[in-house]
């Protein structure tokens, strides 16, 4: 299969998306005013802690928030140029699986325990290819399982989900997501339930799919290690908002938002292992406080209550996204506090 070259087209465009849920005694916006694109062939990772709204973002894109919970979606979600929020349910059904599909988080619970693997993959395959005969579907399924790096596809085909290891199950789930040759795969923490060595294998597999088929991947994770290993670009979410967005290099090496900085410092530093004995390991820093409860009305900068080292006047009352470079954006002007020194340095040169 050929590698797609038109890197500039957007598979997914999200503009000003706000997702509101109904909760006992009111409404709550779990995603508020987020905008981002996923380009063709790109690997974009959304990183955030629990309650950041990252899961709700992908549930909004897939329209999978349960009817009993959803109050409204506002904004635009364009998949391949078409706004799905203005689309009929029937039409959106045709897009699911074919243009966009999901790799579920927990492969253990995401496969139907009552059917054999082959039957399940074939069912989705035949759903996406209505004209395919049973024999064709079986052939394609086996090919697909083989492509997923499954050593014995025949055996897996005839196995029940509980008979497989976690890694194999995750590969099956990825195969299901690929049955319709989608342009975009949304991966919901696909490796967080796996052991580190398996995590690496699955990430490599997704990388390979991205390389070979040119499939764009939108992944969510809570692990910056995964971000640095896998992503082209990264979005940092917190309390339903995007706080920072940029290429992996920009966000990891030049983080601007205090939250991003804090998160990065929470990751243990391993470089002391290579150094001389005398060099002490860097103390693990942490962010004080906890993620805010969205059910309570939040005003102003949602992260401000957890920052102590930035003077009040650097906080905006209602922070907006500020453009730093073409790709690097950050919410709130507090980043200027950190830039202060370097800016002063630059002015000195002038």
């Amino acid at each position, binding site marked *: 299969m050929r590698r797609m070259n038109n890197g500039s087209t957007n598979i997914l465009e999200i503009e000003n998306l706000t997702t509101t849920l109904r909760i006992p005694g009111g409404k709550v916006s779990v995603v508020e005013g987020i905008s981002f694109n996923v380009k063709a062939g790109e690997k974009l990772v959304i990183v955030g*802690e*629990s309650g950041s709204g990252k899961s709700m973002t992908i549930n909004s894109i897939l329209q999978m928030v349960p009817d009993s919970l959803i109050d409204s979606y506002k904004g635009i979600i364009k998949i391949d140029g078409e706004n799905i929020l203005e689309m009929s349910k029937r039409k959106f059904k045709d897009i699911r699986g074919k243009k966009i599909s999901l790799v579920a988080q927990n492969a253990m619970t995401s496969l139907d325990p009552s059917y054999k693997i082959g039957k399940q993959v074939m069912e989705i395959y035949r759903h996406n290819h209505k004209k395919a005969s049973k024999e064709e579907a079986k052939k394609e399924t086996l090919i697909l399982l083989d492509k997923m790096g499954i050593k014995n596809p025949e055996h897996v085909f005839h196995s029940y989900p509980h008979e497989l290891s976690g890694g194999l199950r995750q590969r099956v789930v990825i195969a299901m997501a690929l049955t319709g040759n989608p342009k975009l795969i949304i991966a919901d923490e696909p490796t967080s339930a796996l*052991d*580190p*060595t*398996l*995590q*690496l294998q699955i990430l490599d597999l997704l990388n390979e799919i991205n390389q070979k088929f040119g499939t764009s991947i939108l992944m969510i994770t*809570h*692990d*910056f*290690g*995964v971000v*640095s*290993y896998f992503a082209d670009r990264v979005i940092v979410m917190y309390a339903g908002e995007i706080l920072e967005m940029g290429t992996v290099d920009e966000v*990891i090496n030049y983080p601007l938002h205090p939250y991003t900085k*804090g*998160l*990065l*410092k*929470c*990751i*243990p*530093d*391993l470089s002391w*292992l*290579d150094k001389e*004995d005398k060099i002490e*390991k860097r*103390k*693990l*820093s*942490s*962010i*004080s406080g*906890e*993620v805010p409860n969205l059910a309570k009305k939040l005003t102003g900068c949602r992260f401000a209550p957890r920052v102590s080292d930035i003077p009040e006047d650097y906080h905006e009352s209602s922070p907006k996204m500020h453009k730093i470079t073409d790709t690097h954006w950050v919410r709130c002007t507090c980043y200027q506090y950190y830039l202060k020194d370097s800016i002063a340095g630059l002015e000195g040169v002038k």
Partner: protein
Amino acid sequence: MTEPLLEVKNLTKIYGQKKNLLRSGNQVLAVNNVSFTVNKGETFGIVGESGSGKTTIGRMIMQLVNHTNGDILYKGQKYSEFTKESAERFKSKVQIIFQDSGSAFNPRKTIGSQIAYPLLKKIKDRKAVLDEVIKFIEMVGLSKEMAYRYPHELSGGQRQRAGIARALILKPELLVLDEPVSALDVSVKSQIINLLENLQKKYNLTYIFIAHNLDLVAYFCDRIAVMYHGEIKEVGSTKQIYQFPHNPITKKLLSSILTLDGRYKVSN
């Protein structure tokens, strides 16, 4: 200089029952002939993937699970030779912190009462117990109102702090930390790790840290045992293991660590 606190010798655990007429043998060798020593004041890491037997070792040290073969010695005394008094003393000197703080507390009792009951067995004065409970709750960074809350009313991080308070209230010497932070968010995770570090210094605690994420182990532990399929593949100081791993399993585990600069580079 180093004084062994806990010694594990040829420890073996077999789960399940023997094969008979109606039962196909479903015996599992969870831990196979494992030996190591934990020194006073150090943090000893046991790492391995799920199913490697690391959790079972923790449970056996706590006497929550009986071992099939081998010996565990606490301060030179064999578990199997504990008298009633030494067993009682041992119970207050070795404590555990569980992975899932959500199920480690009885959902129908207040946090405070659950922290209090190990102490209530020793001290009859309820007022003194309450003071002590409040002291420990505040020491782990919770407000004292939390004592009157039910477990589901606390966040995961808060519950894990409460778990630490419960483990510390009898002033133990050895704490078994069974993946204490793996269910927590990144920012909360480092809060708990920092708390554990501070408490270790304050009370001169010895930790056995059971984990599967090797980056945290590298940061937190002085010495490490790498487990695989019930066996210890390698034991050594953190630096030794991370810089000069010998066993292919160790190498494989290390090379799966994802750091901010990509994969961890293992020297051959």
